[in-house]
């Protein structure tokens, strides 16, 4: 009995020590997050209740002003549309590609590299390529001319096609990254599960449905959160493609933030940032739920 208690004591001690070790490793990162993200965000929340220069308390006036601001509504709506269109597309396409790539086969490495390559391309170079493709005398118009026989001078980037072009840019840029995340998830699934399933007569679709997807639930949450985060970064591409006032379909919250900063409307930026965080909470919660249920599964 004594022996058993001693063992438990030692195990508890070891667990405590490993927690401290983990804490030590996490501390610098945690400090960074606290110092450079959490504290500034608290300041942002504070500023959302103050005037532009932070001199006087204005209560909920900024929230009322931003909520009623047409530009904010339009930017928020477009941002939401972009999430709705781009994130699921990225999610599904990158998953499909990772499943393809995961199977051993000829040209797999080349395929993988070609998908990951856009990640390392500078945004400016990428935007330039897309502009060359879609400007009035660009390749796309020349291609259309070759097919239809009539001259095309459509400025695709500044017209109604701006939204699909931006979604395509986002997919092209991020698909490789998400694919790598899926691949990491796939490689963590024990091969024995597939072997057992095959012995039981399960085909490919059944393996996907009953093994792969349930086992990837943890990765799903991570990919979702990272895809949403990355979708905010699409402003860079949007700005480089179409300038600070693009076609209204791709006018998004970062555009508005950028303009508000130019006119020193920090109170509005802070308020909109709080709105944005509040709106992101469900996505974060859903992602967390997915990861948890993945772990429990």
């Amino acid at each position, binding site marked *: 009995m004594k022996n058993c208690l001693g063992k438990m004591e030692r195990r508890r001690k070891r667990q405590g020590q490993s927690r401290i070790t983990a804490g030590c490793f996490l501390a610098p990162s945690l400090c960074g997050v606290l110092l450079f993200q959490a504290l500034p965000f608290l300041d942002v929340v504070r500023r959302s209740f103050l005037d532009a220069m932070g001199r006087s308390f204005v209560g909920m006036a900024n929230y009322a002003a931003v909520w009623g601001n047409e530009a904010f509504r339009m930017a928020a709506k477009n941002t939401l549309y972009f999430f709705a269109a781009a994130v699921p597309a990225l999610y599904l396409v990158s998953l499909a590609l990772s499943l393809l790539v995961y199977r051993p086969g000829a040209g797999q490495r080349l395929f993988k590299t070609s998908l990951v390559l856009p990640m390392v391309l500078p945004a400016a170079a990428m935007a330039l390529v897309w502009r060359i493709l879609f400007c009035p005398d660009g390749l796309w118009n020349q291609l259309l001319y070759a097919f239809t026989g009539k001259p095309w001078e459509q400025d695709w980037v500044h017209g109604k096609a701006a939204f699909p072009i931006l979604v395509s840019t986002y997919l092209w840029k991020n698909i490789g990254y998400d694919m790598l995340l899926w691949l990491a998830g796939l490689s963590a699934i024990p091969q024995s599960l597939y072997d057992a399933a095959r012995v039981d007569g399960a085909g490919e679709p059944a393996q996907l449905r009953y093994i792969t997807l349930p086992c990837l639930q943890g990765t799903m949450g991570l990919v979702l959160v990272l895809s949403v985060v990355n979708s905010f970064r699409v402003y860079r591409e949007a700005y480089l493609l179409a300038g600070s006032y693009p076609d209204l379909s791709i006018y998004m919250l970062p555009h508005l933030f950028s303009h508000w900063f*130019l*006119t020193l409307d920090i109170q509005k930026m802070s308020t909109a940032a709080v709105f944005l965080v509040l709106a992101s909470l469900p996505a974060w919660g859903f992602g967390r739920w997915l990861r948890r249920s993945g772990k429990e599964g």
Partner: protein
Amino acid sequence: MNNSKIKRLISAGIALFMAMNMVSGCSESKSGSDWEENVSNGNRTEQEKPGGPSGKRERNAAEGENPAMGRYVEKEMAVPEGVGEDSLVSFFRGPDETLELYTARMGDKGDREDARRFLWKEEKWQEDEGWWERVKPEDRDVSIRQVFLGLDGKYYMSVMTSGEDYAFHLYQVGEDAGGRIDSSTELIPEVFAPKPGKRYGLIPPKVEVGTGGNILVHDMGEAVMYRPDGIRMFAMEKAWSGMAESSIGYLTAAEFVTRTDGGVTRYRIEDGKEIGTIPLAFESGGRNKGEDMFLFGDERGGIYLADENGLAHINAGGSLWELILDGGFSTLGMQSVYLREFLEGDDGDYYGAFSKNGGRGFLLFHYVYDPEMSAVPPVRLTVYGLEDNSTVRQAAALFQQAHPEVWIEVLNGEDAQGNVSEDTIRALNTELLGGKGADVLILDGLPVKSYQEKGILLDLREVFARLQKEDPMREQVRKNFTEEDGAVYQMPARIAVPMVIGEKPAVRALQSLDSMAAYEGEAPLLAAANYENLLREVASLQYGELFDGKEGLTEETLSRYLKTVKGIGEKNGAKTMFTEEEMEQLRVSNYVTSTGILGSETQYDQALSDCGVTELKGMESAMIPLAVRNKHPEAELDVVNELYFPKVMAGVNRASEQPELAKEFVYALFSQEVQQEEFFDGFPVNLAAQETICVRDKGNYSVGMGYGDYHIGAEWPNRQEREEISRLLEKVSVPVLMDETMMEMIVRGAEGYLEGKETLEQAVAAIRSRIALYQAEQK
């Protein structure tokens, strides 16, 4: 102690060290003035200045308890009596190191007559009496250009002959610069003589003579070495310069050092081969974008570079420039004078010679190191604008002289290419939000309305009330920028005026959009321009109708505006973008200005349009329009719809640590002393300064322009014409405060319609939706 414990201890130590480094790395350096001593790699760019884009720092190094001591101070040398209004010919050290000064009286035609020679002896100028009589040719009149000492120790002189024999001549002068010049002493005349069939020969801005007697002739884009017998040896490339009587570069026994597009380049004078190029000491800026620069050498092979930024030195073979004298602390930084010569003295001292505007009169300075003077004045005042401006620099230089205890730093947001981006404004905003930023803000191009609303700007009503009492300014401008409650947050220090010259009906047609659209004349109403310029020009001229109303730019007004522009464009051949051939044929360019006004008075002169519009930025810019009017006495000359363009908008940062000093600077900026100088950035708003400009006669000053077969010359306006321009300026009362973002939306949105690819309704709808969004952002 076991191994793992040692490892842990080492790890903890390293972590602690890294953490300390991180923290101290973020803190402010206590010796933050290193950059003032050494201009790293020559480029004092905005990013390198401490404290962000507006250069503001928390604490001045000089404010510390033990400020660094010692700096060069500028002492004015008295010019010889009776030559105060004369032209400076040459200033150098003679064979016995005595300072020699050559001056000449300016004749009515700009010729230099009655040259005089002075020697600096016993701390005063002593005239070499009768020198010019001894030297000048007996048989003809000449205008002196340059006297210099060759590296061979002999004196040389260059002159211009007038009349039929208008040519440049170079002579060797006898002992002590005293021998008579005649054909027997003339050097390489065949180089400067007009070529067969040509009226003019080579008139070099500068000539030098090497140790072996070889002659280096500077030209606009190169310097050519000739043997004494006139045989051309080789040419060395230099940066192109249009200056008629100065050229950047100097000759030594072994090298020719000059400015090239890549920086400062050394050439070997044996064969003209390039030895190497080093970057310039300073980013060029200001008046002549690097043309107003002076290079000279020391005895050790080092190079000195002097320009409006200061005096810098680099050792032979070195790559770092050392800042010897900051331009802001001396006349070097002043915009109303031109640097002509800079010399090294015997005792680590320097001499500088400057010409006053127009070449009438000059100033001489001695620069002496004073170890008792603090290296940097204890108080620092920063002036920040997005773009470099000569009036601001002039005000800073004069303010510096009046306040030696203050370090005035003029900064701008231009990058190396002279461009300003939105990121520059964002960086400035970051500072302003943190309660920092420059003390004085030049608000051109900045979101002034927003700054005003957010309380960034200080109320300057006291300053302008005092000015109005002591040194009054244009009432209509003052009123336009005074708020209803009497507050003044910004005020333009200069104004430019759109002026029209043309047939009476055409001039009257500019009154409104409708009259412009309805105009039918022999030629188009406005001269051909690309559509962006045309859109901007019409928007500028009809600013009141388009933007100044209570309702702003309505759908109906926008439609009429676009239709008017298209109507005018169809008549004058406007296009979105001209080809090279079209540019040649129609005398147009694709260059775009913010006002769209490129100056079309010569198009009117050639009957290419029924009126020409130009932007008057000073008396000089009125010369060509007045010359055109003199050719067409029936033409009407007037301002357009009482409009003016406010320039150099000054404001003071409310967070300034020295608001009183900042206000004093603004006062100085609007004072007669600063305002009376002309820098082609607008007319003064100070009434006394305008009167001075009106009285100022630059008798011999003339300009000319032409292309193809067309040419027009113009002389400095006479008193009557100057008064006429002054009267026109009194008529303006409506400031054009164009919103560049909105204008950009109109230009981009109208492109399709103007090219005929979209309907008017489509273009209007697209522009309106963007403008609505832009306006919604600001609510």
